[in-house]
């Protein structure tokens, strides 16, 4: 049998190319490298989608939500991963709500074992506010802009105005760490148009 030099060359090149791949190139350099940058820019965009984008376009980008809620005659919410609610006003993107669980856990848990939440991805605001940040650090970032909730548990809820939006911040209290601001950490955020919100002072 005569060997064909061209076929042999192609074979050798292929083997060489495969062998030269470093397995280390298959993984991200850091754990966050290829993760989506879930930045919420108040008054501008939510996770890269501009405020004012029609609901239909948002669904084209994200797929249909797993839940849809009518909040008021002109306000709706589309819920993804049971933890991200895109808010719409007059069918246009107007805000976002993030929480560990938005839909009743008993109901969802009885039918699904999918526990993925936004915790798996991470999110932040351009000013550095992000999940799990302490109230003490938020005070340093926002200063006097931060408003108190008049309710008894006033450290559990704070809000501030940013342009046309009001930003509500919700905190967990680690009782074993005392009652100062560092014992309160951010676990939930609601950003919505100012006029449709409980006004921040």
């Amino acid at each position, binding site marked *: 049998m005569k060997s064909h030099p061209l076929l042999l060359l192609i074979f050798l090149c292929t083997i060489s190319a495969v062998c030269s791949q470093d397995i280390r190139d298959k993984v991200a350099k850091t754990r966050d490298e290829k993760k989506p940058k879930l930045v919420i820019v108040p008054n501008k965009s939510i996770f890269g989608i501009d405020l004012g984008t029609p609901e239909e376009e948002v669904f084209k980008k994200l797929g249909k939500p*797993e*839940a*849809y*809620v*009518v*909040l*008021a005659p002109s*306000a709706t*919410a589309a819920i993804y991963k049971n933890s991200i*609610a895109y808010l719409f006003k007059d069918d246009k993107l107007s805000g976002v*709500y993030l*929480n560990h*669980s*938005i*839909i*009743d856990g*008993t*109901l*969802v848990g*009885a*039918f*699904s074992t999918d526990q993925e939440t936004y915790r798996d991805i991470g999110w932040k605001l351009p000013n550095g506010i992000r999940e799990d940040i302490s109230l003490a650090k938020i005070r340093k970032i926002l200063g006097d802009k931060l408003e108190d909730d008049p309710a008894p548990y006033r450290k559990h809820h704070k809000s501030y105005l940013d342009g046309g939006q009001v930003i*509500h911040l*919700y905190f967990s209290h680690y009782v074993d760490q005392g009652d100062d601001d560092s014992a309160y950490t951010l676990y*939930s955020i*609601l950003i*919505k148009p100012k006029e*449709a*919100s*409980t006004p921040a002072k």
Partner: protein
Amino acid sequence: MNLKANDFLTIAMAILIGWSLSRFFSDKNDLLRDPPSPVTRTKPLIIPNESFFGVSMGTSEDEVLAKLGPPTGYITLNAQSNAAIYDNSKAFIFTKGKLSGIRIGFSLIESKLTGSYRNEDNYYANQDWALPNGITYGTSLERIRELIGKRLTSDRNGPYSRFHQKYQDGESTIHFYFGHRADAADDDDSSYTLSGFLLTTSLE
């Protein structure tokens, strides 16, 4: 007695003013009157294996929505099951497009989200339901044990088992969720009161 045109006019004006004043005070009295006392009535029933609030199990999703009106929320639970939410406290569960279960609880959609848009002032009224055996919102675990007996089980052991109990009734699995009075002993069944309810069927 001779009455002139002006006299008739005066009498007519007096009658008109008198009538207006009587209406005015009548309206005020309505405002001051005590609100009507709550009407004692039969609670809407959840009848396992049969119907929920008068809607038969197995009814098509389209028919249920036509009967109850558009829901305020709609959820895809898995490839076969969906839920339609009403009053943020009741979820009618559908499997393969047929009514198969029901969930009753507070704030089925997180209240920080829904509450910032509307005043859910019927928070407790939404817990108006009962099983045929009398179990309803607020019934103690002690009473439920009396009614259900040894059929009542839990997936958990220890003190936390009391927060969730369930039993089988035909095709239906009935889950009870309890709140606990903080000042009471962990093993005091009378201090656990029913706060949530879930009925699913084995068809799911």
